[in-house]
């Protein structure tokens, strides 16, 4: 028993030496997740805040040339229903297509021939939107806008048809009816555009700390911890030559002792680094925590990190090929991060996934961290994390012993 501990402490010293020898890699390891997350954050913010000076240019191609389309296009271009972020211009089709190629337009919408006639007769009509490959996101926004417009037209249309039907029944002649329907079409379209008053909108602001910014900062911290653990655990990995392996076996040193030493060292380093990072976050976000909260958060991070490292260790024991092992570790890490809800809040997941989530320890850990920091909970549950640790440890020991036996 004493042997085991002295072996492990020897390996720990060895690991520390290894880190000292390659100290120049440390900043790289520490900054890697932060740089990546920063990069993702920049991409995200660029996605949601398109250049304000540069609105989305949409071309409207009118092959129908009817009064109704002109009414719609002027209503759309003149009212600021679509807001200032959109700029519409009526164009000929070949010009629109040229401008799309020149990257001047985000998309153009084609109103086909006989658009209005078909609408009045109740025939199905297709509006085609041609998007710019280089500005696919903006094209999707255009699609959303047009969907909203067509929904208005759709609801109006059934009613126009109803009126057409009754006007016919009441003995109105074709010309008059056409005029009347146009008036009604206009009236219904404007009626649709003013739909906003249907709804009384209220915003619920519960806590000062519960904004998406807070959520994602905490999430970034949580993801960084996992990535650091993965990096350190593998950074400390050393390829042993067969000769050395044999010699170590003669000394009674086991593979699992070596792995365990790496678990301890990585856990220790990452706990310190993440604590520092956490203090930094707290400075920026300024949320209030009690001393007990720090302990709770510390325990949660400790337990989930340990579980995660044990899973990595189990993979290392099972998979001997280095390539395959890294692949497995990366996949498991990816799954644990995605399922934790740090990228997309868990409530938006499909129900089938949500059932599985109660067995995922990162989800549990991230849930309680959120509760404590964002929702001011004064309580946390550790049972699931403890059980997870127990299971991982047992699996690891059993597998290591079994492997030891097989080899011997």
């Amino acid at each position: 028993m004493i042997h085991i501990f002295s072996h492990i402490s020897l390996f720990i010293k060895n690991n520390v030496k290894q880190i000292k020898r390659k100290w120049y890699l440390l900043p790289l390891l520490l900054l890697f997740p932060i740089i990546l997350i920063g990069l993702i954050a920049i991409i995200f913010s660029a996605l949601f805040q398109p250049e304000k000076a540069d609105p989305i240019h949409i071309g409207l191609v009118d092959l129908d040339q009817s009064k109704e389309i002109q009414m719609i296009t002027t209503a759309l271009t003149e009212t600021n229903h679509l807001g200032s972020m959109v700029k519409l211009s009526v164009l000929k089709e070949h010009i629109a297509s040229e401008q799309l190629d020149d990257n001047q337009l985000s998309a153009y919408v084609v109103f086909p021939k006989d658009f209005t006639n078909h609408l009045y007769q109740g025939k199905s009509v297709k509006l085609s939107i041609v998007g710019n490959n280089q500005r696919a996101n903006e094209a999707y926004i255009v699609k959303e806008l047009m969907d909203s417009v067509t929904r208005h037209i759709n609801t109006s249309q059934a009613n126009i048809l109803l009126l057409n039907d009754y006007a016919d029944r009441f003995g109105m002649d074709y010309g008059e009816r056409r005029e009347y329907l146009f008036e009604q079409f206009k009236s219904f379209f404007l009626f649709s555009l003013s739909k906003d008053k249907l709804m009384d909108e209220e915003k619920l602001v519960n806590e000062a700390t519960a904004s998406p910014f807070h959520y994602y900062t905490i999430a970034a911290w949580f993801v960084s911890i996992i990535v650091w653990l993965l990096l350190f655990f593998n950074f400390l990995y050393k390829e042993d030559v067969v000769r050395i392996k044999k010699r170590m076996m003669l000394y009674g040193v086991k593979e699992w002792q070596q792995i365990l030493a790496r678990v301890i060292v990585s856990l220790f380093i990452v706990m310190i680094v993440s604590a520092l990072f956490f203090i930094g976050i707290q400075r920026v976000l300024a949320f209030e925590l009690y001393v007990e909260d720090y302990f709770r958060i510390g325990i949660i991070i400790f337990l989930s990190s340990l579980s995660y490292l044990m899973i990595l260790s189990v993979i290392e024991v099972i998979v001997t090929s280095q390539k395959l092992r890294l692949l497995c570790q990366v996949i498991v890490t990816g799954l644990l991060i995605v399922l934790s809800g740090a990228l997309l809040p868990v409530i938006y997941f499909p129900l089938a996934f949500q059932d599985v989530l109660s067995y995922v320890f990162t989800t549990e850990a991230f849930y309680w961290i959120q509760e404590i920091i964002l929702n001011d909970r004064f309580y946390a549950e550790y049972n699931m994390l403890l059980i997870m640790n127990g299971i991982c440890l047992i699996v690891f020991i059993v597998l290591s012993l079994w492997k030891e036996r097989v080899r011997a």
Partner: protein
Amino acid sequence: MINIIQTRLIQWKKHSLQLLFWLLFPIVVTWIVVTVGNTFQDDMKIPIGIVLQDDTILAKDLYESIHATPFIRTYTLDEREALHKLEKHELDSVFVIQEGYEEHIRQGSRNALITAYESDVSLAYTPVSEMIMSYVQQDAGRSKAAYAVKELAEQLHVHFDWNWDDLIVRSKEIEKKQDLLQTRLTFPGNGIVHRDEGKNLFQPWHIWALAAFLSTLLLFDWVIKENNPAILKRFVFTNVSPKSYFVRNMYVYIALFFTIDLLTAFAFKYIFDEPLSLTLIVSILGYHLMISLGAFLLALMIRKTFVYYAIAFILTFISVIVSGAIIPLDGLLGRYPWLHFLNPLAAFLDGDFFHIGLGVFIVILLLWYGRKEEYHAAS
């Protein structure tokens, strides 16, 4: 060359399972990612709370329409409970169908029929409220049409037995009969990625390119394993120089990749219904040639396989982000067009053969090949 192929074949035979795994890796990964992505997309629903304060048929019909909307998951709750859940972020938003909903619609008034609550972390409030508003709008519009018919009858002095409910039923019938107006989004051009709507959440060729990036790098580990002093010494006794040995073996690997790539192109046509064209094949080959050369040169610089593998994974991960597989890059590309060159997948995704990286790698390879050989000279 024949000798090289023969020795390589013997070596492959020994590791055939591993080789096969990494060769098929891109296809399998693409299939898994696309399938899982699509089921996720189909089943992803926005949880909202509905508070039904009005007990009329019209209000219940409204609830049914909301409930039947594919991307929404509804929970009927009372107001207090709903708002509490919203505060705890268990719901995206809450919609209260106010008392007197039907009454107001019948009278043609449409102010504040619904009260909507969103919290500051409601990610999907806008599309949901748009949807619900369009349903309410339908009800309001039908009522408006019913009044218009009444007006018309009065205007034309036609005797007409006006009945609100009958006209609403008529209007619903008409609407049901015709599927009226639809929109369709298409993208022109010859890019590899076909983003036309209604298809996959993840683009098969995009995922393939990333998976191939990783598997190609990992498969070039033979360079490291064979580039060690113990083996290099043996070249003195052969008539092949180490450099030409490595380069010829690289050809063999690239030829192997190309064969698999052709199979992949056919497989994707059947699995994902991806169009198969000459431009596609040309850009696949260009892309795979580039990453193969890059992997080869990288492997020449590194001594330890584990370090090489770690770098391979990190590079792949960076490519996943810079290529816009998870988060689209349009906004950034508009501002910083040079980002395009950093993305190893750029040329491939645009359907081009030549990426600047390919040129750089070829130049480096020629420079390396032209330099004097150390081992021949030393021995």
